[in-house]
């Protein structure tokens, strides 16, 4: 059993490949998380214009991407766009798909955060002479973000986990490299290594979230 799943020779041999995969997963996360946050912020700011002509299409947009599996979006971009003469490569496809998909999730969270700030705050800020944008930037957003911080963290955890989808479109991230190593060595140890790495990196975040969420749910009563 240990020879099969935790083979020391294989760990040594696969180490450089798996590490380069880990590095790429970190890079990919550092790109797609800010991209998603940016997309979400735009959506939430648009949603704060409480006009039905803005709000309804936005809601449909967000619900569309909540209903659409990210992998399907990714495959659609990767395998569909070339037929329209647009070949983007796996990395760009991941970036676009994540911008659309995780942007919608982040957008919902930011929107809930903005909604949680009482309207009196905006009125008070405006009455001191701040413009709409200034009131949003200096008064509403800081409180909104603080109120939904656990949700933002939880979604970020999901985004980092989701980068493993990159392996489907040949982005050399952790899972992809682990599978390459597995097919080279005919041994599942590299995949176990990848799983252990994901766990070690993300466990502290899961622990933290578990605490925050318990407190949040209990506090809602």
């Amino acid at each position, binding site marked *: *059993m240990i020879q*099969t*799943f935790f083979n020391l020779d294989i760990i040594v041999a696969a180490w450089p490949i798996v590490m380069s995969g880990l590095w790429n997963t970190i890079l990919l996360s550092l790109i797609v998380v800010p991209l998603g946050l940016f997309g979400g912020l735009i959506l939430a700011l648009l949603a704060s214009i409480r006009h039905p002509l803005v709000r309804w299409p936005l809601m449909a947009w967000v*619900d*569309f991407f*909540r*209903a*659409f*599996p*990210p*992998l*399907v979006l990714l*495959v*659609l971009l990767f*395998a*569909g766009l070339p*037929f*329209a003469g647009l070949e983007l490569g796996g990395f760009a496809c991941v970036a676009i798909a994540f911008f659309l998909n995780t942007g919608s999730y982040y957008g919902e969270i930011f929107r809930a955060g903005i909604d949680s700030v009482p309207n009196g705050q905006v009125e008070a800020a405006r009455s001191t002479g701040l413009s709409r944008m200034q009131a949003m930037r200096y008064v509403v957003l800081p409180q909104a973000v603080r109120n939904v911080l656990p949700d933002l963290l939880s979604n970020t*955890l*999901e985004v980092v*986990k*989701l*980068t*493993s*989808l990159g*392996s*489907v479109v040949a982005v050399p991230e952790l*899972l992809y490299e682990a*599978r390459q190593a*597995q097919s080279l060595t005919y*041994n*599942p140890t590299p*995949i*176990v290594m*990848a*799983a252990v790495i*994901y*766990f070690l990196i*993300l*466990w502290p*975040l*899961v*622990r933290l979230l*578990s605490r925050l*969420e*318990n407190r949040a*749910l*209990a506090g*809602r*009563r």
Partner: protein
Amino acid sequence: MGGWDRFVETFFNAKVMAKYLPDILSGMVVTIELALLIVVTGLGAGLALALLRSLGIRPLNWLIIFIVDLFRSLPPLVIIVLMYFGLPYAGPSPSGFVSTWLSLALVLMAFSEEIFWAGITSIPRGQWEASRSTGLSYGQTLFNVILPQAFRLTIPPLTNRTIAITKGTALGTVVAVTEILGQASSAVSNSYNPSPLMMGAAAYIVLFFPVVVAARWIETKFAWKR
């Protein structure tokens, strides 16, 4: 032929669509089967773990917390790949369908246990004591007093998680499950035309969009009124 016609001819080719419609439909059936299995077993196992945890047996609770943390930290695709490509080295070789089902059910179990548990602990201790003092047994207190209140609290986060994880059935395509995306992808490579992929995308929207809208409705209905 204008640009628009060529676009339609490429991405919404009627001939190709007619040919592969049965494949996509059979993919939809597999996706629905998989989704239902995941939801029922995942939520069931999650609730069972939360109830076990409420017994308050220390070492057992540590084990439960570890299992929950484990399946919350691992990307679902990694679990699927590990089960499908890794387990056979040790003997059992689950099919792609079973690997996808078990992996996603375990993930949903982990997330729902957390949520159920948070719901149960959010009910004040006094409720337990009051029910027990009226002569209700432990089980009666749990099922008639605590859980009905806890459920109400857990429904919004639970629906969100369940949808997000159920959408993961598309991951099955990586381990050769013939669900929608799998069918659509192989149809694209057989026909050299992306229309099946568009049909597949539409199929997901048909299946999941009503669920998302329903979830929104449920969320507002069960929102905790302050």
